[in-house]
């Protein structure tokens, strides 16, 4: 089989100086009726001017350099070169790809054109095209790599942009909640202060009652300010955990004692099972104590008089599980997802009308996450809620 015939997707035609097709040397498959028509008619209308340039260049300089022109029969642009025969004719070579055009130009003399000199000229042009093609390819590969990198960076930027926008929304939401929650205790402080300032006839008992109100509201504001500062520190990565090997049972027992009075005031029994606890766990005892305080306070707040709150500590392989279970009002299933968001309050109400900053669980979750752990929640309406703090016995990264 001839070299020429083995090249698919290529065409070679000989044209007169005006572009009329005189002979078809290689037919890509659909040129049977093309003899007698013109070179221009093989091309898309918008390629006519460039086709005329190709013919003119070949006739003037002996050879016309590579051009990409649209063929009528295909949507892909083909690569074209032209060579003048010396007697006013032009041989046009074209292929679907540049690589094929190079192979076409390398076809043996006699297969492509009978004129040996012309064949050599085409071969040289093919070699030049090949070299240029290789240089172009290297450049294109580098450009493609750069483009790919840039496109990847754009993706990362778009992602960061979305995160920033989301943070902005979250920050505004937080500011709204803070302003709303500060207004009540500050209103109480202002109200009582006005009464104390304006009414000189107040009894000592009334004065004492108003001052207590101011002190209580002041405590609420202070607690919220402290929680907010904790949350901000955690979010900005400024709150470092001071991890050490510590008795988890000791942490649990001490914080149960801290909350016992509050529980007793509501006639709630606090129970503790720490027998299966690992002896020591790599934790920040102050911060894990803060988590326990928060979970215990919540359990007491949402329990009815006569209920029990049980704290269990177990070891599961390399994990320690601290469970705080109450028999309280429970949390609706569709609200559990919001629990750990700042101010993500649920529809459940404290049974004794206690107040809440709405930040405790958000802070607790972040503290536990800093120990490479997680908090799990199970709840049934009217039957109670169980929070499980699961952390590695030896915290990762230590």
């Amino acid at each position, binding site marked *: 089989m001839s070299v020429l015939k083995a090249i698919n997707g290529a065409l070679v035609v000989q044209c007169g100086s005006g572009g009329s097709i005189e002979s078809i040397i290689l037919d890509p498959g659909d040129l049977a009726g093309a003899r007698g028509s013109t070179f221009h008619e093989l091309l898309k209308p918008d390629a006519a001017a460039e086709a005329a340039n190709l013919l003119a260049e070949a006739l003037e300089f002996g050879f016309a350099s590579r051009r990409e022109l649209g063929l009528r029969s295909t949507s892909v642009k083909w690569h074209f070169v032209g060579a003048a025969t010396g007697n006013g004719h032009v041989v046009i070579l074209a292929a679907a790809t540049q690589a094929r055009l190079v192979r076409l130009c390398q076809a043996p003399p006699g297969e492509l054109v009978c004129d040996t000199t012309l064949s050599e000229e085409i071969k040289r042009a093919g070699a030049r095209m090949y070299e240029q093609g290789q240089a172009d390819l290297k450049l294109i590969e580098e450009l493609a790599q750069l483009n*790919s990198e840039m496109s990847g960076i754009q993706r990362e930027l778009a992602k960061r*942009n979305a995160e920033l926008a989301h943070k902005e929304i979250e920050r505004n939401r937080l500011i709204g909640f803070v302003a709303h929650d500060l207004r009540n205790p500050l209103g109480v402080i202002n109200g009582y202060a006005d009464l104390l300032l304006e009414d000189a006839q107040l009894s000592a008992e009334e004065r004492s009652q108003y001052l207590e109100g101011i002190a209580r509201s002041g405590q609420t504001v202070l607690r919220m300010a402290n929680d907010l500062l904790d949350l901000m520190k955690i979010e900005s990565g400024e709150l470092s955990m001071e991890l050490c090997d510590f008795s988890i049972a000791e942490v649990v027992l001490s914080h149960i004692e801290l909350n016992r009075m509050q529980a007793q005031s509501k006639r709630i029994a606090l129970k503790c099972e720490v027998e299966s606890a690992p002896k020591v766990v790599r934790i920040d005892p102050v911060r894990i104590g803060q988590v326990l305080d928060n979970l215990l306070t919540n359990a007491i707040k949402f329990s009815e008089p006569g209920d029990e709150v049980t704290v269990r500590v177990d070891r599961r392989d390399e994990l320690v599980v601290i469970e705080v279970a109450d028999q309280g009002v429970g949390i609706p299933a569709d609200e559990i997802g919001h629990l750990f968001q700042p101010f993500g309050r649920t529809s459940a109400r404290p049974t004794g009308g206690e107040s809440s900053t709405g930040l405790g669980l958000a802070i607790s979750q972040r503290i536990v996450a800093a120990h490479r752990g997680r908090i799990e929640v199970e709840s049934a309406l009217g039957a109670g809620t169980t929070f499980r703090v699961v952390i590695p016995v030896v915290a990762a990264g230590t």
Partner: protein
Amino acid sequence: MTDFLKTRSAGVVNRGASAKTQCDRDWEQTIERFLELLVSHDSVGASALVLDAVSDGLPIPDALIKIIQPTMYRIGNLWSCGSLDVQQEYYATAVIESILTYLEPRIFQGHQGRIPMIAAAVEGELHSIGVRMVADFFEIDGWDTCYLGANVCGSTIVSESIRRKAKLIALSANGRVVVPQVMKTIAAIQESNALKETLVLVGGGVFNVWPNALDHSGANGYARDAPGAVEIARVLIESRMNERTE
């Protein structure tokens, strides 16, 4: 049984012959048109075809899987049979990357604290559209994705995975020649203490046509395409969490 063997069957998408529906024919026309625009160097038209369809309500996953992926397969086939130059393939790739750049802001929700994953084409592998689509599908599924791009050396994949605390790494390879690089990269991941728990998924042309490449890769799982990768990753992560709590 290895993770890979457990999940491999799940990753293979049934491409059995079935009667073409009107819907298939509509997609076929869209793909043909998209291909025509790409090979005729009409980047504006090609971008408009996909972006307008998405603006008109086409879900982004459909745009990726039903238009872009099959078109890229066809471009690859046209190149491999010599009907397209490598330059034309690069051009089409660049246009599609640009389309993805326009689409991606719509899939980023800005949430944080989700499972981090890394997606990359290994060193020597210049084809990255597929693995970028994998990253996009993970992002849509709620993962915290980081797409590292094409031709990424193993040490970069390891260091970025450590830095971002990746739970999953998706590696892509198209040609057989880069399979040793996949194996080296996975070995480097597994040698890193910080990545002991990190799962590795592989995918790409070479794994789809040469299953032997999978057997020696050391990966935890394989997926034929982006939706399959998300599905397998969920299974692997869930089974790992169950192992921990058992």
